[in-house]
């Protein structure tokens, strides 16, 4: 499984990279534009969604995952995958810990026993 220096057609042209560059910048423009709209929770959702797409473009094209063996794809994804553990499992605590967050965002009233009231 030797993967040589990448002397092949995809290096011959700069066009895909320039297109990706333009797409990233346009997406960034949309992202910045949403910041000025009063769309509440949707603004960060759109912004971080766009950041994810931009990251995918950078990883696949600029960092040359495209055409690479699956090993590199696995490692490129595994950092984000492991972060899911940290984010997801921590949130099982923060989403319903007694008195956290101090202002509860969910409109679900906390269960009585969870609070330790009465």
């Amino acid at each position: 499984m030797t993967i040589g220096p990448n002397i092949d057609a995809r290096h011959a042209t700069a066009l895909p990279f320039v297109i990706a560059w333009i797409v990233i910048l346009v997406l960034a423009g949309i992202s910045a534009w949403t910041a000025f709209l009063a769309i509440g929770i949707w603004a960060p959702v759109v912004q971080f969604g766009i950041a994810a797409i931009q990251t995918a473009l950078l990883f696949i094209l600029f960092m040359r995952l495209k055409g690479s063996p699956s090993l590199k794809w696995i490692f490129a994804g595994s950092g984000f995958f492991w972060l899911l553990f940290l984010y997801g499992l921590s949130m099982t605590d923060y989403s319903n810990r007694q008195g956290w967050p101090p202002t509860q965002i969910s409109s679900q009233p906390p269960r009585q026993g969870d609070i330790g009231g009465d």
Partner: protein
Amino acid sequence: MSTTTFEGMPATEPRAATEPSYLTSENTIASWLFTRDHKRIALMFFASVTFFFFVGGTAATLMRLNLATPQGLLQPAVYNRMFTMHGIIMVWFFLIPSIPTTFGNFFIPMMIGARDLAFPRVNLLSWYVFNLSGLVVLFALVMGGADTGWTFYTPLSTVYADGYVFAAAIAVFINGFSSIMTALNFIVTIHRMRAPGMTWMRLPLFVWGIYTVSVVMLTATPVLAMDTFLLAFERFTGIGPFSVQHGGDPILWQHMFWFYSHPAVYIMILPAMGVVSELIPCYARRPIFGYTGMAIALMSLAILTFFVWAHHMFVAGISVYSAILFSLMTFFVAVPSAIKVFNWTVSLHKGRIIFDAPMLYALGFVLLFTLGGVTGLMLATLAVDVDLHGTYFVIAHFHYIMVGATVSAFFGALHYWWPKMTGRLYPEMWARSAAILMYVGFNMTFFPQFVLGYLGMPRRSYTYPVEWQSWNVLSSAGASILAIAYLLPLLYLGWSIFFGRKAGPNPWGATGLEWATPSPPPTHNFGDTPIVTLGPYSYDPENDTFIDQEGVSHAR
């Protein structure tokens, strides 16, 4: 170099016997300090971690000495600094680096048939960074030490502690770079440098152990790095994400800390499991029971270990539902460990068992690990943990795993591979006595602590009520036996370097590729790259023969 062969071994000349051994090829100090040879770096790591083992051990000795009397012999401030330094040094400067940086460094390339690790310079840099962090922690120790416990819980560590917490946290931060560099090197090496024919399912289980531990190190350490960075920042400036005054959450520190530090327990135990999986088939002279299951268990431990960290926080005030989820995950993580214990035990079935010192250490490992494991189950049970958390029961439990099991495996590996590393045999009777002494001393030290824990003796206390003295004295007495058992190998192994019998290339009749080289091996391990045709552990107890991984059959 020696070409003496083991009794009964076919007198095939080991490869590249003409090349000088890695120990004697160059003899200047610079040739060691700037070496890129994984074997020399492994020995340098061995020297470093042994030094820190005895620094941490000295702190432990002082602690047990203090606890021999109820009112304590040391000043409270000194005792607090001792257990903090004992924890920090033993965890980050001995247990985590011990097996990977010494035996991993030395034997991973040899076991997979490579001439070196993928990035030898990074490997050397890792050693320097490790020692830099060691200097910082020694600086903190000499200047007065830190008094927070190795867990650095906020806000004690950020605001109230008056020791050198900043320096200690920075030392841990720097130490992380060393871990990451070593882990990265192993992962790349195992992926890309295997000899022809060395498929994943032909890897020795030690290589699997090191691979999984590297994955855990690589993915857990950055969270600790960020956590200690933020802690040092908050300690320095007075504001940070753990600051209660600014609306921060002190429990966030615990979440991020245990996100690393629970997997850290597996960083300590996975390579030890790998070692034991090498020792048991070799000395039982039969293939390991359930190779595939063992490899899968290692991998699933490496993943599952990330799902259980909040079981250190069941009484910390986290959400009850979250605690229940983490408890369930903890029971799941116990399953692969149970599989491994079962497989090791069954691996003795119909073997031809030789009770040499490494085997004694390995059997001790299995028993101590099992006891540590079942008490871990008790701690994973939510209601029982409420009672036992923060008591000596926890201390006893994790010492059974981290000291009983991991250090046993470390010494087992040391004896097993000593002939390969130095070219000399160790004195067998001395080694057996040390192994038995260690087992006795260890149980005598830590078993009483289970009782003390259930009686309610809180950890990290320099004083305790008089009625607990009998247990504590027993524990301290055991600790002195344990200290002797740890010092003994230093003496007889040191003696054997100069006066031990010369070892042949394969004194134990083992199957791994590392035994296909002369002892000690030449600088670049293999003259020509070996071609692997078989999985590991092709021992045949019926006829007392074995087939090495290149497919050559030997009578033992």
